[in-house]
């Protein structure tokens, strides 16, 4: 056991890029929160360096993969990487809980909140219902891609990964089009505006919650694009099935968040 621990310690990865991206998040969001724009610029630069460094390292075939395959007690038999993603997902649940909780606090205190059943409701519910199904369908194709990867079915994996990428891109595109329409035509802005001042609180909650979700989906699309390009180039690596599964876990998580956001923002009035 002691030898196993010593070996695990020796092979622990020392890639600098995850830390760089984490620092980018710290500077970027810290700058946004305090409105110190130079910090935001530093964050964006660090993000570019971190992601670029990872892609450069990957293109050169340099691997810092964690070689310690599985956790010991209490998570016996679960790979370190998968456990890491689950812990990240737990932190994301806290993040979205705070965001939705803030929206709920705003909802119960705002002087006005639009009713989805009324004719002047600013959001397009039927279009977003279709968009919701598109995201759910992308979770289905992702689950199929993971399954195909575990079975070693190369062609199936590529097809389902690409299908997930296309469906996810469609979801974000429809959301972007809806943003433009409601901003310009329905006068729903993230801040109070003189044309429809009563929608100020709703607009603030709507853009914050759906915007952060959209950013998470866009991040997932980068992961999917990365996997798809590698798969289409025919580049396999020893833990590929597990990598597809881990990206899949993140993708399903953003689907689960939308499962709650859709009724909260589009279907429940006050």
């Amino acid at each position, binding site marked *: 056991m002691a030898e196993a621990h010593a070996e695990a310690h020796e092979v622990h990865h020392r890639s600098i890029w995850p830390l760089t991206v984490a620092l980018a998040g710290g500077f970027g969001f810290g700058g946004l929160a305090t409105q110190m724009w130079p910090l935001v610029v530093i964050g964006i630069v660090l993000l570019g360096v971190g992601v670029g460094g990872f892609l450069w390292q990957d293109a050169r075939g340099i691997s810092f993969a964690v070689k310690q395959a599985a956790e010991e007690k209490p998570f016996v*038999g679960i790979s370190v990487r998968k456990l890491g993603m689950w812990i990240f997902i*737990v932190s994301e649940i806290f993040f979205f809980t705070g965001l939705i909780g803030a929206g709920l606090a705003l909802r119960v205190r705002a002087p006005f909140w639009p009713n989805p059943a009324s004719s002047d409701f600013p959001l397009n519910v039927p279009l977003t219902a279709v968009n919701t199904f598109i995201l759910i369908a992308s*979770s289905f194709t*992702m689950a199929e891609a993971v399954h195909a990867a575990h079975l070693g079915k190369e062609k199936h994996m590529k097809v389902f990964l690409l299908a997930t990428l296309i469906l996810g891109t469609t979801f974000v595109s429809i959301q972007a089009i809806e943003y433009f329409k409601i901003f310009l035509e329905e006068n729903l802005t993230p801040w109070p505006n003189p044309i429809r001042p009563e929608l100020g609180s709703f607009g603030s909650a709507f853009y914050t919650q759906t915007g952060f979700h959209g950013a998470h989906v866009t991040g997932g699309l980068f992961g999917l694009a990365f996997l798809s390009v590698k798969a289409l180039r025919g580049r396999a690596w020893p833990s590929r099935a597990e990598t597809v599964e881990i990206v899949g876990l993140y993708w399903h998580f953003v689907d689960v968040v939308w499962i709650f956001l859709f009724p909260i923002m589009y279907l429940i009035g006050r």
Partner: protein
Amino acid sequence: MAAPTTVAHGTERIAQELKRPYVLVLVLLAIVTVAEVQVPTLGRNLDFTTTLQASLLMTSSVVKASLVALYYMHLRYEPRLLSLLPVGPLVFVLLLVVTVMSH
């Protein structure tokens, strides 16, 4: 060095033993989503309170999220401790909702 073997077994199990009710789950998710979209109109016609509508929609959302987590994220087939990991924050979700609503 038994750990890698355990992982290999886990991967093998996912590949071979899963019944893959993926299509059934997709159909269920679609049906529940269509039903959800009807709630505001039904609520207006049948004079449902907002609380009742919100309760119906949150229940259906929990059902949908559970289907995704259990089958697409494979939590149904993972060790119990890992399955419980994402349930932990839900206690805080409840606390937050109760706190916000009670003020």
